[in-house]
């Protein structure tokens, strides 16, 4: 099976159907093992106590938030350069998942921040960057919803996603610069200089589980979007079919329907 075959929506659906159950099983298994390690194997932090375990959700969620944007940017290149509808679908499916992971990273960060910093929110460089990232995700989702024509929406979103991709890097840099300007660099770094393997292994397992979760959600979301578009196509076709009585009399002049 070549990449070109994959790019056909019907073949893609068949593939999803075959693969998805296995990926779901793998995701559940990875979470079971990962959570077990996170809760029962990884040691308490000598300073933070149990709260350090939030890290096992927070760090993978943050990674996924960025990975989702990368996925969206890659798909955007696909829809601009190759104009492939499946790339559009992939980009559209990524946005809400990315927003959810970004929110999760922010939320877990805030919950973790309360015991650590004594406050739910600080304008720390990372938190701020992620807040901006969340706004970008939500803006992109809003743009998807605002344009009815999915093909046009895809192109416009691809443009703003790619401009955003360049800007994410600039924002990251500028926010870090801004942060060191306004605050002493003594803010607690979540991960110390060296991470012990007793933490690294559960963290790696959780990262794997999150990646699998992303793949599951992305495939499901793409499948749903293809279905949605298929329904849209069926409805448009229904609108373009002439009423039975008149279609027999004027075959050639059947109205082509709304555009």
């Amino acid at each position, binding site marked *: 099976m070549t990449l070109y075959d994959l790019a056909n*929506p*019907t073949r893609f659906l068949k593939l999803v159907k075959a693969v998805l159950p296995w990926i779901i099983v793998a995701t559940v298994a990875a979470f079971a093992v990962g959570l077990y390690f996170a809760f029962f194997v990884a040691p308490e932090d000598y300073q933070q106590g149990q709260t350090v375990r939030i890290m096992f959700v927070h760090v993978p969620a943050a990674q996924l938030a960025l990975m989702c944007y990368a996925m969206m940017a890659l798909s955007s290149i696909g829809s601009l350069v190759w104009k492939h509808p499946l790339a559009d679908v992939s980009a559209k499916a990524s946005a809400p998942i990315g927003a959810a992971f970004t929110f999760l990273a922010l939320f877990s960060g805030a919950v973790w921040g309360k015991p650590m910093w004594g406050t739910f929110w600080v304008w720390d460089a990372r938190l701020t960057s992620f807040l901006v990232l969340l706004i970008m995700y939500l803006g992109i989702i809003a743009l998807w919803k605002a344009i009815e024509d999915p093909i046009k929406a895809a192109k416009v979103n691809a443009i703003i996603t790619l401009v955003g991709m360049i800007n994410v890097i600039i924002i990251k840099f500028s926010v870090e610069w801004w942060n060191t300007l306004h605050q002493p660099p003594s803010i607690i770094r979540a991960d110390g200089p060296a991470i012990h393997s007793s933490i690294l292994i559960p963290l790696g397992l959780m990262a794997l589980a999150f990646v699998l979760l992303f793949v599951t959600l992305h495939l499901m979301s793409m499948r749903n979007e293809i279905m949605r578009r298929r329904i849209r*196509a069926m409805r*448009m*076709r229904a609108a373009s079919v002439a009423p039975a009585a008149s279609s027999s009399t004027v075959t*050639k002049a059947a109205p*082509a329907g709304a555009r």
Partner: protein
Amino acid sequence: MVVSGAMTQLKLVCLSVACDRGGRRVLNHVDFEVGSGEALIVQGPNGVGKSSLLRVIAGLVAKANGTIELEGGVHERSVAEHSHYFGHLDALKPLQSVLENLSFWRDFFEPAVFGGGKVRESMSELEALDTLGIAHTASLPAGYLSAGQRRRLSVARLLVVPRPIWLLDEPTSALDKASEDVLLELIAEHIQVGGLVVAATHLPLNLPNTRFLKLLPVTSESEYMFAGTDLDDYFDEDE
């Protein structure tokens, strides 16, 4: 009649042109050719893609398939750059005067002749306004014009900038009988000096050297993007 431009003949050739809009194929396998001194009248019922075809030729809408070539045109210039597009919208700024509106498009397009085909020498702005019977409005804001006058001012753009191909979308809409006759005369003149016209209309236009292209609705199911026959593709077999 003054004629300028090289003496080469132009020929607009469309082969197997297809166009998707809103995830739906509105044009499929459209073939035609039309040469200098000819008019192509695109006919068909509402929503059949007449406007889309003109917009594809004008480069405003990407074609999904096929080729559109201009034989005898300037090689490195697109079909759109040889063309005037006269659509439903007048492209007028109500706060600017009639003359300012017209002069802007003249200066913006200039120089507009890329050789190839014969084109009537362009008129001056006032000449064009006079021909269309709206010279008296030249210094007034375009917002004061009636719908018919705005339409005529929009036509004036085709006269002050010489371009060999005219793409006309329902050119006679919003015009009264007298203005319609003037416009048809101008189009006929454009054809006679060697211009090339593609017009979408459902009215009979009385033009010389006319060819007709009848568009039929795209009916095949496969012409819908993402169209499988139904959702069973996914839920078939074991469910």
